[in-house]
């Protein structure tokens, strides 16, 4: 099948328009975040969800509302006609649509190897977890650290490992693992904050909403905007867990210090490595990771004010504008 013919078919139009709709939705969400100065991670996450979920349904719903929406006449009057760009040819030779499909293909590959495979592997390893460690309550020194935290139904294990290790397994019976190396690096208050943060992840993983969200995200596997915005949602999730941890420990400084010790100093090791494409990409990823950690530390320092109405007005208005504007994007 010829490319142009595919683009005019229902699946082709779905792919192209869902991409354009997610671009516009991202722009509107960003305008809302800036206009209302939203810093609450829960509200930000809710707004970012629009970018993930909306493009899945937008094209079919709009087509049901108006089956003539893809016609020549509608396109001529539209706010943005995607086919004008897709039908263009660079230097009269290379169709731009090939560039679009290359972008979708690369996004799909990145999604497969950076998201789907690691998540499936993590889920598999969590189920058949062969990790053995000392139960926290048996660990004489640090057990006091999280004794007063309300962590019912969550097991905490201390692994004998000199490396700094801290992670949690998800599911109904989530567990938290930390290494003896970590216990040597962090003081008691910092360990308490770090464990509380992991506990927040365990609690949040019990909510089916996150699983449903990931299933939605899978549908948009080819969409680079959804790829980026999903990562932002994950970063906002970290901030939500930070807030939860602080609400338990009442000590934001301890969590900030733990983050600093665990992630900022650890990354200095990249310096002095021979430069090549792989190390450059690694360095870029580390730099981006470091920026995220620094923004989390800064947040813990200043505190995150909630929007007056929990951002419901901003969310509602954003949804309406996204719905109306994207109707005229074909």
């Amino acid at each position, binding site marked *: 099948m010829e490319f*142009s*013919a595919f683009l*005019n078919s229902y699946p082709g139009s779905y792919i192209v328009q869902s991409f354009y709709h997610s671009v*516009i939705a991202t*722009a*509107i969400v960003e*305008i*809302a975040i*800036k*206009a*209302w*100065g939203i810093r609450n991670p829960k509200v930000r996450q809710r707004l970012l969800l629009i970018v993930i979920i909306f493009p899945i349904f937008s094209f079919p719903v709009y087509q049901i509302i108006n089956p*003539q929406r893809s*016609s*020549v*006449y*509608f*396109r*001529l009057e*539209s*706010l*943005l*006609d995607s*086919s*004008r*760009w897709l*039908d*263009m*040819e660079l230097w009269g030779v290379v169709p731009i649509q090939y560039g679009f499909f290359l972008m979708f293909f690369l996004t799909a590959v990145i999604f497969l190897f950076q998201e789907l495979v690691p998540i499936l592997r993590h889920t598999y390893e969590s189920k058949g977890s062969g990790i053995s460690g000392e139960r926290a309550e048996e660990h004489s020194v640090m057990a006091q650290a999280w004794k007063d935290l309300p962590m019912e139904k969550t097991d905490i294990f201390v692994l004998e490992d000199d490396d700094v290790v801290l992670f949690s397994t998800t599911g109904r019976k989530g567990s938290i693992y930390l290494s003896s190396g970590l216990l040597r690096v962090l003081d008691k208050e910092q360990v308490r904050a770090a464990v509380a943060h992991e506990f927040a992840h365990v609690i949040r993983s019990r909510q089916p909403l996150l699983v449903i969200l990931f299933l939605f995200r899978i549908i948009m596997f080819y969409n680079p905007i959804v790829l980026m915005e999903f990562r932002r949602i994950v970063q906002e999730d970290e901030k939500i867990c930070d807030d939860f941890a602080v609400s338990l420990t009442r000590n934001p400084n301890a969590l900030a210090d733990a983050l600093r010790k665990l992630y900022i100093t650890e990354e200095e090791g990249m310096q002095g490595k021979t430069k090549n494409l792989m190390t450059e990409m690694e360095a870029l990823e580390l730099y981006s990771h470091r920026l995220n950690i620094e923004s989390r530390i800064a947040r813990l320092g200043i505190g995150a004010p909630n929007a007056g109405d929990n951002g419901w007005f*901003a969310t509602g*208005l954003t949804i309406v*504008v996204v719905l109306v*504007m994207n109707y005229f*994007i074909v």
Partner: protein
Amino acid sequence: MRFFAFSAGVAILVFGLKFFNWLPLMIQVDSMRGYRDLEEVRGALQVKTIFVPSYFPQHLSWPPSRILAQRKPFPAVIMEFEKMTSKDTMLLISQSTSEDFLPEEKIRLIQVEENVTYSLKGREALLRVGVCQRNEPCSGISWKEGEYKIQVLAISTPFELIRIAESMLR
């Protein structure tokens, strides 16, 4: 204040999109757009053959009220003709090298009562008779003419439609 900041941001986005929509028209001159007359289409797009009827019912106004044409991604021309006494589109003629190109929005058969093959000066044509949007009787005929698929839609009886279609062929 925040609402106004949001509105201003959305307004800037709308203007940005309009510019982004206009830009390809400037870069690529042969994408779908409106033309003043058929000569302009021939000159701009180098379309050799444009099928125009020589028989034209008196109640329709000439020249076409709207001409749309493109060369890429495939050559296509649409001509709309209005009623002499009003702005209603009564006749729509399109030609395109793509089989899927069916601009039926202005005259759309919402209920097809008859669907028959018809020999149009030796060409095998598909004749459809039915009812259009405002419950008006209308009809459409389509056939292949060389590399083009031609479609004629009219808010009229099939007899008049066939006369118009036949007058487009030599």
